């Protein structure tokens, strides 16, 4: 997806997250935070020229929905565009330090995904605070990166 669309989603997810009750709505609060962070990482990867900003939407690592000849979306293999989650797929090659730091912060959030959202671990205010702090770091780094010129993706 293009960077502007990633930033638009981040803006709307963050507005919603602000309306949700952190603990009372933890599942959707967390999911909005995780989606915000994933869009931020994707925008940063595109900006760094590490992945393609394109109208291709991931269904699983390596497989994207792309417009077919009739305009309808069809699954197809594509080079790395948007990641589904940090590490899915792993982006090969040396990445800028700030993007690596964003991904490391996202790992903190992702670490709580399955236990707290799919599993039986109850979320705690400490877990929520840890996720919020990690996401804030991601967004600070994204804002810094977006204030600098970007690079085009080169295969």
């Amino acid at each position, binding site marked *: *997806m293009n960077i502007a669309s990633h930033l638009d989603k981040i803006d709307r*997810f963050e507005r919603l997250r602000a309306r*949700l009750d952190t603990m009372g709505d933890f*599942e*959707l609060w967390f999911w909005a935070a995780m989606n915000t962070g994933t869009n931020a990482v994707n925008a940063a990867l595109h900006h760094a020229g590490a992945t393609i900003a394109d*109208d291709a939407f991931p*269904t699983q690592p390596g497989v994207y*929905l792309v417009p077919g000849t009739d305009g309808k979306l069809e699954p197809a293999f594509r080079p790395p565009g948007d990641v589904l989650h940090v590490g899915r797929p792993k982006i090969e090659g040396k990445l800028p330090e700030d993007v690596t730091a964003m991904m490391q912060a996202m790992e903190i959030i992702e670490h709580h995904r399955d236990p707290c959202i799919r599993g039986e671990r109850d979320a705690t205010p400490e877990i929520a605070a840890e996720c919020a702090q990690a996401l804030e770091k991601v967004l600070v780094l994204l804002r810094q990166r977006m204030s600098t010129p970007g690079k085009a993706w080169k295969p």
Partner: protein
Amino acid sequence: MEALDHRQRAERIERSIAKCGDADHEMKIEGAMLAGTHWVNFILHRMGVTKGDLDVMHSYMLTVNELRKYSVADAEMMAAIAEIEDIRPAHVRGNVPGGPAAAKRALELLATLRAKAHKLSV
């Protein structure tokens, strides 16, 4: 996770979805996926098809045999959760026009799953 826990989590997520506005189609779809998956697990546990130590996470991660087995239990249920999952790439991860209509459809499918679960509730 036991059936009642799935029910409680599904209901809590549905209360959160109600806080989403017109601009929040992605999180309505994601909420439908999360709550809908809890309802699927509630139904499968209540029917005795699966136990609490075997929860479905994403329909697309099931083996072909698992999908066939759960579809024998309730084909419409598995089709509903699969359709919700299929909405996500274009409208949650993508920016394809029609997001609000896609969210409306996801919530209709969630209502179908909730209704099936309620029939099995004591």
